[in-house]
C-alpha cells in the first residue's frame, strides 16, 4: 500500500504531512465552515482514528506554523470524543506524555480563579485539561467539584467550561453528584443554572434516583426542571430504572415539559404516561399509542 503520509514527508516535509493530518482532524472532529467533510462514513472513521494510537505522532510532532488555537480545539475535541466513546487516550505514548505534563493545570487554574467570572473565556484546550487532570489522577472529581461548584459560587451563570467539567465529573463520579442533588437543601444551596446542569449530567448518564428525579420535577425553576426532564426523555434507554424516573417527573407542573415527554419518549414508555393529569398530554399519549398499533 502506498503511504501518502510518507510520500508527503519525502516530497515536502514532516511538518507539512502533519499539517495535512491536522487539517483533516479539524474538519472531522471540530467541523469547519471552510472545509467540507468528505468521507463515506465519518463517524466510523472517527472511532477508528481515536482508537488507533497512531495520531499522537501527528498531533504532537512538528506541525510547523499550524494555528495554535485550532490545534488546541482539535485536542479538546479528541479528548471529548474519547471520553464519550470510552477510549483511553493515555495508551498512545504521545497523548500519555501530554496528559502527565498537563495534569496539574486544571486545579492550578481553578485555585488561581482563572474561570471565576462568567465572561472569562477558557483556553481552547480546556476539555483536554479537564480530562488530563482526571486521567492522570492528579485531582479527584470530588476535589474539582468542590473547587468549582461550591455553594457560594453557585449563583454564577453556567458557561461551556462548567458544562464540560460537570460532564467529566459525572462520568467518573455520578454518585457524588447524585448525593448533592438528593440533599434536602439542594434547591436552596445552588442557583438554578447549576441545578439544571447537575440534572442534565445525571440524566445524560442514566443515573437519577427516584428522590433526585422528584427534586428535579419540583424544582422552583422551570428552566432547571426543563433541562433535566428533557435530558431524561432523550436518554431513557441509559437508565436501569427508566420507568421509575419517568413516573416521578411526568406530573411536572409545566404542561409543555410533560407534552415534550409525551411526544418524544420511546413508545414502550407511553403506557406509563397515560395516567398523566393533564388532558392534552394524555391525548397525545393515546394518539401515539394508537399510531403504534396501526
Amino acid at each position: 500500500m502506498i503511504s501518502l503520509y510518507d510520500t508527503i514527508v519525502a516530497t515536502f516535509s514532516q511538518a507539512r504531512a502533519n499539517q495535512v493530518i491536522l487539517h483533516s482532524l479539524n474538519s472531522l472532529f471540530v467541523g469547519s465552515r471552510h472545509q467540507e467533510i468528505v468521507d463515506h462514513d465519518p463517524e466510523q472513521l472517527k472511532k477508528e482514528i481515536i482508537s488507533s494510537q497512531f495520531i499522537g505522532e501527528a498531533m504532537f510532532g512538528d506541525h510547523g506554523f499550524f494555528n495554535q488555537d485550532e490545534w488546541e480545539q482539535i485536542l479538546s475535541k479528541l479528548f471529548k470524543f474519547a471520553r464519550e466513546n470510552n477510549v483511553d487516550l493515555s495508551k498512545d505514548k504521545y497523548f500519555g506524555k501530554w496528559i502527565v505534563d498537563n495534569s496539574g493545570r486544571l486545579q492550578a487554574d481553578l485555585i488561581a480563579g482563572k474561570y471565576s467570572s462568567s465572561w472569562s473565556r477558557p483556553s481552547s484546550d480546556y476539555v483536554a485539561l479537564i480530562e488530563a487532570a482526571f486521567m492522570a489522577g492528579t485531582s479527584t472529581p470530588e476535589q474539582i467539584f468542590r473547587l468549582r461548584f461550591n455553594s457560594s459560587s453557585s449563583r454564577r451563570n453556567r458557561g461551556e467550561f462548567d458544562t464540560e467539567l460537570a460532564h467529566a465529573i459525572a462520568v467518573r463520579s455520578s454518585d457524588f453528584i447524585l448525593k448533592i442533588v438528593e440533599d434536602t437543601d439542594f434547591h436552596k444551596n445552588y442557583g438554578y443554572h447549576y441545578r439544571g446542569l447537575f440534572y442534565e449530567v445525571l440524566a445524560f448518564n442514566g443515573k437519577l434516583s427516584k428522590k433526585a428525579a422528584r427534586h428535579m420535577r419540583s424544582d422552583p425553576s422551570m428552566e432547571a426542571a426543563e433541562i433535566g426532564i428533557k435530558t431524561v426523555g432523550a436518554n431513557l434507554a441509559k437508565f436501569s430504572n427508566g420507568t421509575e424516573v419517568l413516573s416521578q417527573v411526568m406530573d411536572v407542573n409545566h404542561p409543555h415539559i410533560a407534552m415534550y415527554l409525551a411526544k418524544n419518549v420511546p413508545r414502550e414508555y407511553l403506557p406509563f404516561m397515560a395516567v398523566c393529569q393533564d388532558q392534552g398530554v394524555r391525548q397525545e399519549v393515546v394518539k401515539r399509542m394508537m399510531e403504534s398499533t396501526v
Partner: protein
Amino acid sequence: MTREEIFNRLIIVAINGMAANAYRDGDTLKAFCALKIADVVPFWDGFTDQTKIQVISAHHAELSEWIKSHKESND
C-alpha cells in the same frame, strides 16, 4: 486499521475537502487535480455523485487523457 491505512484515509479526507472547497469556489481545475491525487488510492466514494458528474463534465477531455495514461502506466 494500520498506521498507513489511518493516515491515508485522513489525507484523502483532507484532499477531498480541498477539492470540494475548490469546486465550491468555482476552481474546477484545482478540484479536478486534487481528485486526481486522491485517486492514487481510489476514493471517489466520498464525493457526492452530483459533484463528481459536474467535475467530470467540466474536465472530461483531461480526465479521459489522465485515465488513458494511468491505465497505460498500470499496464
